[in-house]
């Protein structure tokens, strides 16, 4: 059952008003422009025990994603494809509002939006992950771990997911006997096959004013937020509106235009990182 959120960070009324009036005048409380992302920092492969991993800091929002590869059974209606599973945990160290327990609706929503944005444009080549058709395939577990929550979790999750998947290596298959597949996780054979990259762009709306990449404080005062998945070909590959106010249909064109523009910037960052992986494979400094 979904409930009106009752446990959110409290923002003094005066600060709420400041945030709002700044947005109305085309400004932001942290000095950004409406269409400006916060600083994006990336660490590739911070946890080499996972088959792939990445840590992304989007301002003060910190997300680590790990990709694990295991042997399993395909879905009976997809015998010729590997299986991709996306999970997200909003662990309680990330925010005073989070409690331990199974993922809540926000974590589930984030995971499912990322999942759909990968699945629909076939971002991962699942057809290359079959070992014995109908019987044994690679399972790709993509676990999103939110470590510090300062808003716009989905964009950060999508970036760290895309980077983790791109760094992932498939372990060596040592032997196959009678549908029994033995692997050696210490030896990596080939990269996880990726078809194309996807990013999401989250656009907040307040009284018709648009801002990108809202902070947590901004998210709390916004009317609504719309998350748009865009692949590297500029196609829309997923949308999720969240928040408890409506949106004018007439504004959708502007929203999509802005999303496509910002998506190009994010894709450029992905390319830069993936083309220079060593520059981003540095010791983790979380500060």
């Amino acid at each position, binding site marked *: 059952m*979904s409930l*009106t959120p009752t446990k959110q960070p409290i923002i003094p009324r005066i600060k709420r008003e400041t945030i709002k009036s700044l947005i109305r005048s085309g400004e932001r409380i942290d000095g950004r422009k409406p269409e400006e992302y916060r600083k994006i920092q990336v660490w590739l492969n911070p946890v080499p025990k996972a088959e792939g991993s990445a840590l992304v800091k989007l301002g003060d929002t910190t997300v680590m994603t790990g990709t694990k590869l295991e042997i399993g059974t395909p879905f009976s209606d*997809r015998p010729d494809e590997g299986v991709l599973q996306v999970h997200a945990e909003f662990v309680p160290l990330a925010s005073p509002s989070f409690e331990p327990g199974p993922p809540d609706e926000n974590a589930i929503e984030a995971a499912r939006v990322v999942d759909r944005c990968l699945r629909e444009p076939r971002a991962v080549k699942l057809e290359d992950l079959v070992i014995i058709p109908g019987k044994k395939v690679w399972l790709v577990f993509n676990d999103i771990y939110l470590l510090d929550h300062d808003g716009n979790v989905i964009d950060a999750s999508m970036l760290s997911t895309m980077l983790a998947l791109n760094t992932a290596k498939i372990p060596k298959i040592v032997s196959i006997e009678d549908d029994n597949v033995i692997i050696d996780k210490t030896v990596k054979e080939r990269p996880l096959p990726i078809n194309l990259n996807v990013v999401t762009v989250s656009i907040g709306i307040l009284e018709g004013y648009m801002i990108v990449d809202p902070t947590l404080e901004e998210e709390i005062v916004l009317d609504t937020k719309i998350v748009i998945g865009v692949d590297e070909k500029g*196609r829309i590959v997923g949308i999720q509106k969240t928040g408890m106010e409506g949106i*004018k*249909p007439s504004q959708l064109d502007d929203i*999509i235009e802005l999303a496509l523009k910002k998506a190009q910037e994010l894709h450029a960052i992905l390319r830069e990182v993936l083309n220079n992986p060593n520059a981003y494979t540095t010791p983790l400094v979380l500060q």
Partner: protein
Amino acid sequence: MIEKPVLIRDDGLRHDGRKPEDLRPIKMQVGILKNADGSAYVEYGKTKVVAAVYGPREVHPRHLALPDRALIRCRYHMAPFSTSDRKSPAPSRREIELSKVIREALEAVIFSELYPRTSIDIFIEVLQADGGTRTTGLTAASLALADAGIPMRDLIAGVAVGKVDGVLVLDIDEVEDEYGEADMPIGYAASIDEIMLLQLNGVLTPEEFRRAIELAKEGARRIYDQMKKTLHDKYLRIIEK
């Protein structure tokens, strides 16, 4: 793996004979349950959904009560027999997500500030699933709220646009959802011209998206009119009695 069926026939019609811009046959009843404060039964073709509303009523546990508005609680749930393969009764991740997006859509129209310290509970049960269960559920929930007399800024009509065999079509059913290229459900409040629910599961070009929104609004407007009529008829009946 079953082979993909033909979704757009040579004559341009869909697998069930509809034109791209056709809705399925839609039925609506309100006030169907005795216990609930408001209720509705809605069919979009073979998709069948019941919704009930309880409230405004006391909040349990108490500490969840909000000082300045009603707490909205919403559950979208599928009966075990509603799907081809029996659905486990435990709430799936999908059901949890859909409960959230439907709740958020309804939050946008309910005047919750009129009922501080209470809860308004919305329960949606899918009895048969044949595509469009969330949009059918949103329509049913909207009618049940109206039936319960909860003041709202507007009614919300739910409908999905899909892309199948490259063609944008209205109100997709399960086969079109499964074998199509995109499913875009929306919740639209026609009088105030606002979109309360919007998701896209699939791939669209920006241009296709623009046309899909137009098609969805147009379909939602027709459903909205039928909702108004259903409520109107019921109150007429009551007055006549």
